[in-house]
């Protein structure tokens, strides 16, 4: 007798995602799917708007990572203007993008994922969250808050506000950095670095205490994708787009962002509004690949900064060059935090960083432009077409979480196969399904995150729709 388990409300954004797990006649998992049931529609409703509005409009996709959309959108618009933006503007954009990555990773690791690692995946759900952490591990909670604040303050110091700054524009940025603001940014570096080092050291010390989770949290070989720097270093703002095999070896690399569609296909499933990008040469669904911190860390030859590289060496000595388990996204995130802080410090000390030339002005000179950046969760692609008056006629967005959709689906199935047996549901199963999704830190409409526990309902139904078992969290 086959059955279906529906997890309705697995979400980091107001309950707009669900999971379906199908069981066969023997009660074994036969399929599992992660459905995103919300609809954004930004690609459609920007049609007819002037390109100059795009960065600010597209930033509204997300309240957590608006900076990432600002960057990708502005880069697409730079292409439409066909301008080379001033070098100082590139550096300032890099700083803001890195600050965004630091603050977002801090949220993901300290606020959302570390409660599972501190209290265990079978810990009491009433305390297995950031508020429980504040009671039992206040320094850890404080570290997360202060690190996130560090990144957000840099965004505010550069862009005027933490959320939806309008400072990144086609052609550069609107305002140069003042010496006073540079000093304020630099003043925050030592404390942020201390926190990041503590977090990385702690995670490195406990990572081998979760062998079961590491074994089944989306643990399978896939390709990886993301930007890489000129020497193969880790890269978040520009550089070449690379696809690598499951060992991290480059398969395809291209510098012209417009070539993305030669290699990325977008499948659409009837039961999800989240597209399923795939590596075209391998076809759908075999062309599964992962993006984000794990992919970037796997593909990079090095970070290029001493503290991050030391932790990367430790990561590789423990896990190898290309760990196949998505559980290790957490450690990769901490390496990127270390790198981000070091890189921000380096950029702030660049003698050119206070240069007043930060914007190139031009009219539209192309009808098509693509911008690719690395968001905290992975590669973010904005592709625009405009008419001769500079008005948008078409847009396509490939969001970082979308690239990971196929891997998340397989990961949910893998966890379900390991933890679901027969007709009975256990709380630990629920949390591990959450946990595998949380490794990817999805931002389904790029807008929100759960604090420790997602609202969730799991219903185990018989073939005639009867409820066999139900677990619910509000």
């Amino acid at each position: 007798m086959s059955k279906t388990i529906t997890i309705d409300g697995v979400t980091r954004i107001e309950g707009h995602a669900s999971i379906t797990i199908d069981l066969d006649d023997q009660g074994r998992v036969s399929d599992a799917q992660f459905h995103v049931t919300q609809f954004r529609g930004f690609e459609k409703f920007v049609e007819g708007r002037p390109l100059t509005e795009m960065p600010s409009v597209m930033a509204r996709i997300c309240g957590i990572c608006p900076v990432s959309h600002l960057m990708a959108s502005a880069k697409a618009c730079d292409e439409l203007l066909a301008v080379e933006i001033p070098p100082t503007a590139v550096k300032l954009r890099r700083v803001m993008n890195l600050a965004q990555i630091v603050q977002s990773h801090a949220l993901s690791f300290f606020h959302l994922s570390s409660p599972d690692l501190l209290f265990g995946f079978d810990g009491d759900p009433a305390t297995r969250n950031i508020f429980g952490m504040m009671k039992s591990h206040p320094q850890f909670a404080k570290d997360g808050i202060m690190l996130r604040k560090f990144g957000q303050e840099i965004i505010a110091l550069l862009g005027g506000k933490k959320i939806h700054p309008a400072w990144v524009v086609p052609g550069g940025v609107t305002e140069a950095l003042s010496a006073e603001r540079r000093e304020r940014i630099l003043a925050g570096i030592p404390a942020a670095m201390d926190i990041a080092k503590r977090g990385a050291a702690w995670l490195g010390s406990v990572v081998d205490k979760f062998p079961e989770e590491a074994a089944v949290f989306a643990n399978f070989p896939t390709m990886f994708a993301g930007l890489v720097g000129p020497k193969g270093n880790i890269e978040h703002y520009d550089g070449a787009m690379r696809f690598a095999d499951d060992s991290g070896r480059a398969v395809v690399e291209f510098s012209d962002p417009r070539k993305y569609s030669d290699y990325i296909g977008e499948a659409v499933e009837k039961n999800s509004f989240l597209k399923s990008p795939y590596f075209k040469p391998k076809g759908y669904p075999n062309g599964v690949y992962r993006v984000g911190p794990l992919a970037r860390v796997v593909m990079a030859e090095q970070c290029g900064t001493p503290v991050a590289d030391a932790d990367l060496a430790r990561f590789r000595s423990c896990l190898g060059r290309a760990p196949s388990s998505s559980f290790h996204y957490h450690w990769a995130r901490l390496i990127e935090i270390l790198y981000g802080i070091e890189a921000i410090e380096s950029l702030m000390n660049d003698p050119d960083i206070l240069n007043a030339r930060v914007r190139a002005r031009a009219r539209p000179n192309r009808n098509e432009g693509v911008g690719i950046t690395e968001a905290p969760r992975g590669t973010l692609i904005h592709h625009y077409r405009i008419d001769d008056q500079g008005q948008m006629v078409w847009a396509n967005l490939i969001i970082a979480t979308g690239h990971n959709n196929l891997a998340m689906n397989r990961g949910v199935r893998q966890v379900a196969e390991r933890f679901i047996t027969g007709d009975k549901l256990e709380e630990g199963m629920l949390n591990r399904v959450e946990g595998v999704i949380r490794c990817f830190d999805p931002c389904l409409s790029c807008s929100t995150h759960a604090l420790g526990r997602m609202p969730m309902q799991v219903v185990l139904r018989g073939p005639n729709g009867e409820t066999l078992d139900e677990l619910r969290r509000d």
Partner: protein
Amino acid sequence: MNCAEIDNSARGRPLDVLVIGYGNTLRRDDGAGPAVVARMSGMHEGDRCAFSIVHQLAPENVEEIGRARRAVFVDASVGVAPGKIRVSRLSSREPGGRALTHFVSPQTLLWMSQKLFGRSPAAWSVEIGVADLSVGEALSPAVDRACARLAGHLGHRLRWWLHSPELSASLNASKEDFYVRT
């Protein structure tokens, strides 16, 4: 109105007063809190007083709250008549079991401050009744007038707190109270 976030909370220094205005400035009267604090932020009262404007309260706000002796949270409210002002005393409250959170309440921030920094300020909620929450940046006339009035009241209160140290010190900050004539 200056929609940019303001954070002049001198990092690491103890504060006598922290005023936080929060709300969505793109939904007209929901931006009342930011509007009040934007009006007040021109006050030059030294570095023991700080003003913050944020889109919404988040855990990161706990750091500055943990440094403050008094905190005033200014927000828009649908529970107050349009253009009216309600002041109420706040106490810390442990968060319940809400799993999803875009936003933390002032009471939760006070609780967090106590847990993480071992102290929390005397705190008040100042709510401004809203008339129009549609899309747009301009406040409705009644709310705009209320914001101006409230900024004046809070400014007086703030100067009293800052410049009457002998009187202020004689009061236990956790027990004092204030009112706004509406």
